[in-house]
């Protein structure tokens, strides 16, 4: 890597990649906090893999794979949420069915599609350096929706997430909010595929939040802390991906995991200092 960072910014592909990281960090920071707080990591993993079916459909019918995957994933997510309530099938079994069904559908369509599938690896492992303007527009649009929704309805989202049954006794629109949020989870996942890839996208929805959770136990603060952590990981991963010519998903996770380990060590030190202060403070009081 001989170029300076400023020179890199001059390249369209690089500034696109940086913008994509920026939007993905905001979307994943907010939606990931919801996922982690409500322990929805498994359903999110399921939706991620289900969306592969939408990518296959896109390839086969010559559509934009991200666009078809978004629609497919959102519908699947709503389907899981609906069937888990109405069909009396256990939710995790249902997720298993959707998960494998989506993957199978994707594989079938990709094999049936004429010619060979270019960029397939990019969808599986992330390819930040090939982000298009259309990808960016979709990501920016989602950022607008997600931040707007959370800004307007933050309290009710928090209260419903914390205690659904109690919210129901207050006649809060629990089911409606749940549907909207699971739809936003699906959209966020698919529109982050270009950044981290299907196999690895769950990292951006869980690792930054887990790091943030080391320092704060408040929903809002986890959101505000995990966004910069997600961006840090994406940015470091982007540089690594460019320098070594490896898939961006893998390099982002490497960066995030290293950050997590560093943060964990830091939080241990901070806690240690706090405890020592508290102990010596008690002594002085005596």
């Amino acid at each position, binding site marked *: 890597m001989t170029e300076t960072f400023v020179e890199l910014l001059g390249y369209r592909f690089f500034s696109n990649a940086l913008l994509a990281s920026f939007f993905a960090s905001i979307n994943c920071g907010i939606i990931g906090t919801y996922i982690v707080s409500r322990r929805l990591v498994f359903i999110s993993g399921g939706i991620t893999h289900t969306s592969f079916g939408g990518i296959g459909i896109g390839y086969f019918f010559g559509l934009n794979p991200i666009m078809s995957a978004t629609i497919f994933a959102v519908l699947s997510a709503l389907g899981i949420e609906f069937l888990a309530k109405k069909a009396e099938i256990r939710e995790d079994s249902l997720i298993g069915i959707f998960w494998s069904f989506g993957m199978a559908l994707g594989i079938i369509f990709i094999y049936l599609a004429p010619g060979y599938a270019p960029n397939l690896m990019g969808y599986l492992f992330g390819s930040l350096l090939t982000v298009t303007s259309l990808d960016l527009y979709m990501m920016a649009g989602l950022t607008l929706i997600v931040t707007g929704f959370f800004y307007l309805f933050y309290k009710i989202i928090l209260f419903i997430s*914390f205690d659904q049954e109690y919210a129901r006794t207050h006649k809060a629109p629990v089911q409606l909010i749940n549907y909207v949020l699971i739809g936003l989870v699906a959209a966020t996942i698919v529109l982050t595929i270009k950044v981290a890839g299907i196999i690895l996208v769950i990292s951006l929805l869980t690792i930054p939040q887990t790091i943030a959770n080391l320092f704060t*136990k408040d929903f809002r603060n986890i959101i505000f802390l995990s966004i910069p952590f997600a961006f840090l990981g994406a940015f470091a991963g982007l540089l690594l991906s460019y320098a070594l010519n490896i898939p961006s998903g893998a390099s982002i996770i490497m960066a995030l995991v290293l950050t997590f380990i560093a943060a964990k060590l830091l939080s241990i030190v901070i806690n240690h200092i706090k405890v020592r202060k508290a102990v010596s403070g008690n002594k002085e009081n005596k």
Partner: protein
Amino acid sequence: MGKILEIENVSAGYGEEIVLKDVNLVINDNDFIGIIGPNGGGKTTLLRLIIGLIRPYRGSVKFFDDSRERSGGSIGYLPQISHTDPRFPISVIDVVLSGLMSKEGLFSRYPARLKRRAEELLNRLGIEDLKKKNIGELSGGQLQRVYLCRAIISSPRLLMLDEPSTFVDTMFETDFYGILKQLNRDMAIIVVSHDVGTISWYVKTIACVNRNLHYHPSNVITQEQLAAYNCPIQIITHGDIPHTVLEMHKHPK
């Protein structure tokens, strides 16, 4: 004294299982009713009916305000504390504010006066220093007090408590019942419990629920009466000194 709620000929249950049959109950202002009964007898189902989590198969649950019928009641609800995720990232003050959900609507802004009100309540229950803590950092008794604040911040006409003695730490218990007695001046209270011994000395009346409901207009109840009500639970007797006699039972070593 106004009527808050009337349950008429209600049957309710889950799926094909009928848990409650032909239940009648009227709740008036300043009532303090203990609902007792064996496990599986329908106590929780009755509670869920009143707070609107399930609908009756037959009969009606009607709410009243100035003797006019209303679509919903103003009810404060204190669930068993074990039903929430103790690691959920939410602060004590936010939990208390969530008791205003139905009054404040969907949007995010809660005016400062409501925050002050939440703080006053926490203060009244002696836990104002916990307001910024995460709920996972509290003891069972502290969490119960937080939930009580959440239940009463909307000044409901009826307060429902589900097994409040299960998690209360002993030191807090008497204190807790004192607070309930005080609250009873402003609102009717219903306590659901499997433990007659504990509740009988602070409720005013008792309702026995075991598929049917038998209302007992006093807080003392004899074994014969319990048997007549088909309510196989621990019994209580009374004499000069109020005390509780439990049926012979084994204690785990």
